[in-house]
């Protein structure tokens, strides 16, 4: 094989890539154990499926699906090891953390689909109940139970442990908690085992084994073959109950939703941010969980025209950074073009402006479309700048402009600059464009008095 082939191969074949990643994971010591367990699991599942067909018991099949689910959870565990090793690629810019979530989601959904299949099968069995041979029923039950419990307890499955802690309780857990609460009233010592909430997987394994034992007993004693179907339905329902909260939790992560438990904290932080000096409003806030636990988010912050953007950005980032690790903050001002006209050297700015005015103007509209209420002042005034130099009095209506503008800036005015604006309005209140622009220059002059500007001056090379 030539070098070109070697170079190209990993990109081409899917299995080669998989093998490469697998080698990467297999290099880790911890994953050996998982691989060992996976191999045992495969063997175990094979035996169980054989026993299922020999006993013709659907309850045992439903229980076997739990073993298969165990296999998926082992795979998820491997994936989570792999994820920690991988760096974000340019295509998957957020990294592969979400693969863990997707694996959890997929395996819980697959378990539920299996349960759905069981429900369908048992509906058909109610019509025509076949005979169940109890020969290997109990053996299969105990093999599956002991293997499941052994896997659960000996392997630290990080993603599933997290999800089962974070997701809401399943109905099975609730009932057990309710029962054990009254049990612990009699024997207080048990509370350490049962009380807060039991591990849902251990619970469903035990409950399924219990149902199978009852099935075995009733079939042995009385040949009630219908019990098999009934307990299959029970196991399927328990599987649903156990898996549903987890798939809802991981599905919500995948849907890029704000996790409900951080909403309170986020609200507090956003309130803090909106009281920062110069901040007018916070909008378009999107916060979502990237993987299990880490938050990502983006937010738009509208600031007063005279506020220092970098300063506000730093403060906002600083506040939100405690909670949101991947954060993007867009600072925007309304009508930022006007102050630039009068505050800087006029000639240069006009030149500058004429260079750019063709590009930005339609875009400004596009961005402001998102929130028409707050951007009302921009819209009537966005066309004028190009024309207003040539025909100052033509398309400006000073009275209405003033009215529309004082409203959104009301917050800013409260900071004690009212006298300035009044004065400046009087001074610069020339007809035409002067009215609106003078209004703004009143603010653009102020930032020099704010402490932050001096710092920029210092930092400037």
């Amino acid at each position, binding site marked *: 094989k030539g070098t070109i082939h070697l170079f190209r191969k990993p990109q081409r074949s899917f299995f080669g890539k998989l093998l490469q990643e697998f080698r990467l994971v297999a290099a880790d010591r911890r994953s050996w154990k998982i691989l060992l367990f996976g191999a045992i699991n495969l063997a175990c599942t094979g035996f169980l499926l054989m026993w299922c067909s020999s006993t013709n018991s659907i309850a045992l099949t439903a229980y076997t699906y739990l073993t298969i689910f165990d296999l998926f959870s082992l795979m998820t565990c491997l994936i989570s090891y792999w994820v920690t090793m991988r760096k974000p690629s340019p295509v998957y810019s957020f990294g592969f953390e979400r693969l863990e979530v997707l694996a959890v989601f997929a395996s819980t959904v697959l378990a539920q689909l299996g349960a759905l299949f069981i429900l369908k099968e048992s509906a058909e069995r109610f019509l025509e109940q076949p005979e169940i041979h109890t020969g290997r029923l109990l053996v299969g039950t105990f093999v599956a139970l002991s293997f499941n419990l052994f896997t659960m307890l000996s392997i630290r499955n990080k993603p599933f442990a997290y999800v089962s802690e974070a997701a809401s309780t399943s109905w099975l857990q609730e009932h057990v908690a309710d029962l054990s609460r009254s049990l612990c009233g009699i024997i207080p010592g048990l509370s350490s085992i049962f009380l807060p909430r039991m591990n849902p997987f251990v619970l469903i394994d035990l409950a399924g084994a219990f149902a199978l034992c009852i099935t075995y007993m009733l079939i042995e004693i009385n040949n009630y073959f219908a019990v098999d179907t009934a307990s299959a339905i029970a196991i399927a329902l328990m599987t649903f109950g156990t898996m549903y909260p987890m798939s809802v939790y991981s599905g919500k992560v995948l*849907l890029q939703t704000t996790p409900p438990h951080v909403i309170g904290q986020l609200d507090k932080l956003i309130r803090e941010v909106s009281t920062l000096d110069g901040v007018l409003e916070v909008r378009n806030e999107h916060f979502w969980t990237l993987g299990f636990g880490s938050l990502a988010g983006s937010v738009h912050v509208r600031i007063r025209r005279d506020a220092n953007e970098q300063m506000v950005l730093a403060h906002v980032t600083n506040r939100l950074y405690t909670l949101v690790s991947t954060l993007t903050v867009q600072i925007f001002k309304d009508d930022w073009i006007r102050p630039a006209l009068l505050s800087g050297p006029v000639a240069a700015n006009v030149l500058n402006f004429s260079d750019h005015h063709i590009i930005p103007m339609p875009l400004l509209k596009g961005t402001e479309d998102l929130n028409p209420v707050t951007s009302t002042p921009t819209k009537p005034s966005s066309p004028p700048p190009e024309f207003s130099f040539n025909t100052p009095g033509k398309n400006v209506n000073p009275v209405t402009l003033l009215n529309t503008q004082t409203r959104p800036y009301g917050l800013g005015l409260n900071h004690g600059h009212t006298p300035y604006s009044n004065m400046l309005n009087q001074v610069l209140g020339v007809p035409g464009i002067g009215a609106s622009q003078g209004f703004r220059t009143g603010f653009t002059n102020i930032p020099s008095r704010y402490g932050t500007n001096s710092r920029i001056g210092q930092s400037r090379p």
Partner: protein
Amino acid sequence: MEEKYGGDVLAGPGGGSGGGLGPVDVPSARLTKYIVLLCFTKFLKAVGLFESYDLLKVVHVVQFIFILKLGTLLLFEHSDIVVISLLSVLFTSSGGGPAKTRGAAFFIIAVICLLLFDNDDLMAKMAEHPEGHHDSALTHMLYTAIAFLGVADHKGGVLLLVLALCCKVGFHTASRKLSIDVGGAKRLQALSHLVSVLLLCPWVIVLSMTTESKVESWFSLIMPFATVIFFVMILDFYVDSICSVKMEASKCARYGSFPIFISALLFGNFWTHPITDQLRAMNKAAHQESTEHVLSGGVVVSAVFFILSANILSSPSKRGQKGTLIGYSPEGTPLYNFMGDAFQHSSQSIPRFIKESLKQILEESDSRQIFYFLCLNLLFTFVELFYGVLTNSLGLISDGFHMLFDCSALVMGLFAALMSRWKATRIFSYGYGRIEILSGFINGLFLMVIAFFVFMESVARLIDPPELDTHMLTPVSVGGLIVNLIGICAFSHAHSHNHGASQGSCHSSDHSHSHHMHGHSDHGHSHSHGSTGGGMNANMRGVFLHVLADTLGSIGVIVSTILIEQFGWFIADPLCSLFIAILIFLSVVPLIKDACQVLLLRLPPEYEKELHNALEKIQKIEGLISYRDAHFWRHSASVVAGTIHIQVTSDVLEQRVVQQVTGIIKDAGVNNLTIQVEKEAYFQHMSGLSTGFHDVLAMTKQMESMKYCKDGTYIM
């Protein structure tokens, strides 16, 4: 029995052992005599009811209802509270915590046990029926009516009893108000008995006219009649009313239900026993041993479940209620107000809800198509099921179940299509559009599972090909094929609009191919991604693939049927299904892959090139040093989101850069963009603010890189 009570109090969840907290309780010592009284009367009532059963067998009033005497006792003697809480658990969402749900489940299980597992002498009954054991026309009529429904007589009795129980509870709740109008509960009770006697009188007269009497002497029956009337009607009523005055109603129900069940069980076992026969004073004239119900395991199990459920349901619900904190008592314990529940009922009426959701469904083409197809599918399913039941063909019925199972995918697709149009909320800040992708993913998994099961089944059949009965298969599969073809036409119509590909019928390879195509062909340079079309509606793709898989299934059945009938190749069936499984699998893989990529926040492949160009263009903007953390991902069919951090030189206006960058990136197809513009001052501020040491380190590194870049630009 008193000892049992003691145990009961202790074992009851939070019963008497609650201690200081909770509603104020009368000390249980004072109540003991009432409890004992209650137990005793309940016991006597059980005696009376059994007695009355014997009597009724002789007198034929409404013999039918009392066919299952034990069932009568078990079912009918649930007190109002138990039943009301059961119904509230079943029909209102605001039950009362898990315990109540458990109780309701126990109740239902018990009823089912009574229905299913008490089949000890069902055969005997059936065999006896022609002999003319029923000597009254009425009973016979009822008997045939129930037999027509397909359940044995005592099962019909159980069903009737459930109905009667509901009626009784309804009557009792109504009677509370009525008793005030009439003037006391006592008078009402008397009146109601009178009315019931009047109602029963014609029956009795008619029956006694038409049937030859088996009664030898009316006189010997007076004594048992008197005891029955006394025990069942009078004593029970008085003691009940006294106890309910003295104790809580729930407690009363709990203590009352327990002895009656126990005694019912005991009597059920021993009533027909020879010893008790001897003990009884009166002689039974027409006592038929053969028709007696023997106590079976199912009845015992159901009795245990009934006791449990009565115990749980009648216990006052404490934890489930949501109380509002009013304040603190002088001792410092919190006081709660439990009235809140009454004000939270603001649910819509059901017809209105259905109407509104239907309107929503029909608003948009996607959900409308799914809905119509779902209706068609369900119609076909029910026709199939009905026909299957009518002709008693198991194959048809199981195929119907299979169709129902498939419908679940359609239902999910419908819900996803409906939900994806919901407005964005605080939690779903980008809107619900992504649900479609998730639903597509789930549908893909669903199909994978189906393909897997079909594969396993066909492999098993390859090894051991079974003999098939093919004559029923063809019409069903042709019907299914027609339905699914309609679906394919409907969905591929919407589909091909998006793709510009030719009709994607039948050929799945063609279909998947067109999917590969669409990534390049569709998204040329169109930036107006309306929510209506969108290149990638994973939900519709999933539903489409589902319908496709079904179609393939029916085609496979038809082909294999033809092969089997013509040539007798029984191997054709597993081969066909193997082929179908592989086809389904192959057609699903692209869907799952695409959905995974979206869910993993991959850079959208169809925008990859443009975004790359856009980022190159950005770097050429005047005053821009570099960018970092460029994330672009597809959120849903209509939303492509992106975030980017940009470093600029200190002398550039941030807003202008934002506008320029926004313009460039939006041109590349991203419509939800956040840009963070950073100058050197930002990093200085950040390091000045109390960020952690590591952050400062990262920031200074950033700054250094910036300086380096700046140097580069300066050099240039």
